[in-house]
């Protein structure tokens, strides 16, 4: 004599992956309840009907064993291996002796290990639990901004907060906003106007920093999440038109108006679209790009941000075009793999998380490449994984970690 509960307990006992238990239990309970009900309608009493329903299910062990096989946590090695390879590529610009960047190697080892640790942590974390904390994440992001905007330090005209070894910088809020907005768009409880206000508060903070590359990345993340969400096509179109007008107006305003408080990054943005004006960075890049060789040369001119903002340029220059193209292909494969995973995910929240992560990884890589060809204004757009620094590494590993976490659980979400 076995009850429904005992049967399900026995099945679950064979499934090693505890996270799959809930879904299996719910489904089997529904089946057994229906089956029991059918027997009761045939005139059997409660206990007999339950017994019959359980008997009809067959062998619990067989079922448990086959379900265990199906629901084993899966690791997407085709994403893990390129990720680790890309992280290793971050050592490339540090190695040449001419650049005298070797003192960064030890720090980069720590950063790479940290990035891998974050990825492992996020992979093991059940992403479904994050959805509940969407609002918390948003509030936390705003609180961090309150501290940063009243910060005590400045670098390249951008404010940040420093107290001893603790540093709070604007980019740290980006993953928080990503998780928050993915949750908001997945839930669909908030109206479009409410979401617009939430977006604008974040956007205002990034402009106040002022960090335009972060502002653009943030805007791209929210915009892509909005397009991927289930808002109606009409709403999407209306928003697109409104925002394109806004941006055209904003850019033309910036082009015409003289920069009263001189701003470094804005001045840089202005130069590229104004003929006659030449920016040192742009002419330097075009000069280097014209003199590239297949296998690289060692006569490198020293440039300040060789391992961060111009990392791809440094690789192209010192290791040659072939190495540079290989690195771009590696990054392309990572993007392709994340997008490929996306196609097999049917959980709305999981899908949006991957879309958001994919959005900023792709934006940063594409912008960086376009920057090298002089097609877009120079901005500090580090390449995830490869540029030196905690920011590109951490953001990259958050995107990879979330994708792996969702891939791992795709059989029962």
């Amino acid at each position, binding site marked *: 004599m076995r009850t429904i509960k005992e049967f399900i307990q026995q099945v679950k006992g064979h499934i090693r992956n505890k996270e799959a238990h809930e*879904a299996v239990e719910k*489904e089997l309970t529904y089946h057994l309840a229906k089956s029991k009900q059918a027997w009761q309608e045939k005139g059997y009493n409660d206990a007999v009907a339950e017994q019959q329903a359980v008997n009809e299910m067959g062998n619990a062990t067989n079922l448990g064993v086959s379900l265990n096989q199906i629901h084993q946590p899966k690791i997407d090695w085709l994403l893990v291996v390129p990720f680790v390879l890309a992280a290793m590529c971050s050592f490339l610009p540090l190695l040449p002796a001419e650049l005298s960047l070797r003192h960064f190697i030890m720090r980069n080892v720590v950063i790479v290990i940290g990035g891998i640790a974050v990825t492992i942590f996020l992979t093991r974390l059940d992403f479904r639990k994050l959805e509940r904390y969407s609002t918390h994440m948003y509030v936390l992001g705003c609180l961090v901004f309150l501290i940063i905007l009243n910060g005590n330090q400045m670098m390249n005209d951008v404010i940040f907060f420093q107290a001893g070894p603790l540093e709070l910088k604007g980019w740290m809020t980006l993953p928080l906003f990503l998780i928050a907005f993915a949750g908001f768009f997945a839930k669909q409880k908030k109206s479009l106007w409410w979401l617009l206000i939430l977006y604008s508060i974040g956007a205002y903070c990034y402009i106040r920093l002022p960090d335009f590359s972060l502002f653009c990345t943030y805007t791209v993340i929210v915009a892509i999440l909005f397009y991927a969400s289930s808002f109606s096509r009409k709403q999407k179109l209306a928003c697109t038109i409104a925002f394109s007008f806004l941006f055209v107006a904003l850019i033309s305003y910036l082009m015409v108006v003289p920069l009263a408080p001189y701003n470094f990054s804005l001045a840089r943005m202005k130069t590229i679209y104004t003929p006659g004006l030449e920016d040192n960075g742009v002419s330097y890049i075009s000069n280097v790009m014209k003199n590239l060789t297949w296998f690289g040369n060692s006569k490198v001119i020293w440039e300040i941000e060789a391992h961060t903002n111009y990392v791809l340029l440094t690789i192209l220059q010192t290791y040659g075009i072939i190495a540079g193209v290989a690195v771009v292909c590696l990054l392309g494969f990572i993007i392709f793999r994340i997008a490929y995973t996306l196609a097999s995910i049917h959980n709305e929240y999981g899908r949006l998380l991957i879309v958001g992560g994919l959005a900023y990884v792709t934006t940063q890589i594409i912008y960086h490449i376009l920057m090298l060809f002089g097609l877009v204004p120079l901005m500090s757009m580090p390449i995830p994984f490869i540029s030196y620094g905690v920011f590109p590494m951490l953001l990259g590993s958050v995107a990879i970690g979330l994708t792996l976490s969702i891939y791992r659980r795709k059989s029962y979400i």
Partner: protein
Amino acid sequence: MTETRFKQAMKNQFKKMQFTETHKEAVRKGIHEELSDQVLLPMLQTMRSGYEITQLLYTKNKEIVSLNEGIIYASLHRLEQQQLIISEWYGNEKRYILSRKGVKVLTKLNKETDKLPSLQLLLKEVRYAND
């Protein structure tokens, strides 16, 4: 090691053993026929839960499910993992339907069975009529 010992045992111990009809019956019962995709996929053209599929299989006199309904879920979860079907929760009920990939596989399966001899084709038509 185990293999050689097993071979030796086969030579010595099992030589006198008779493989009788009752043994055969036991083996036959032990092997549960895997629920083939050819049976399941056509049913999933409309959205159905595991319980509904079980009932449908009973009406079609499929021996596989009697006293072995659990196998449905193993097959459904496997198909879902192969991305041939997708699922959605309606409250406590999980329903499945063919994915785009699943539709492709089903059309391919149908084309293959169409080439089979006419008697089998007839039987298949009877099965569809039952749907």
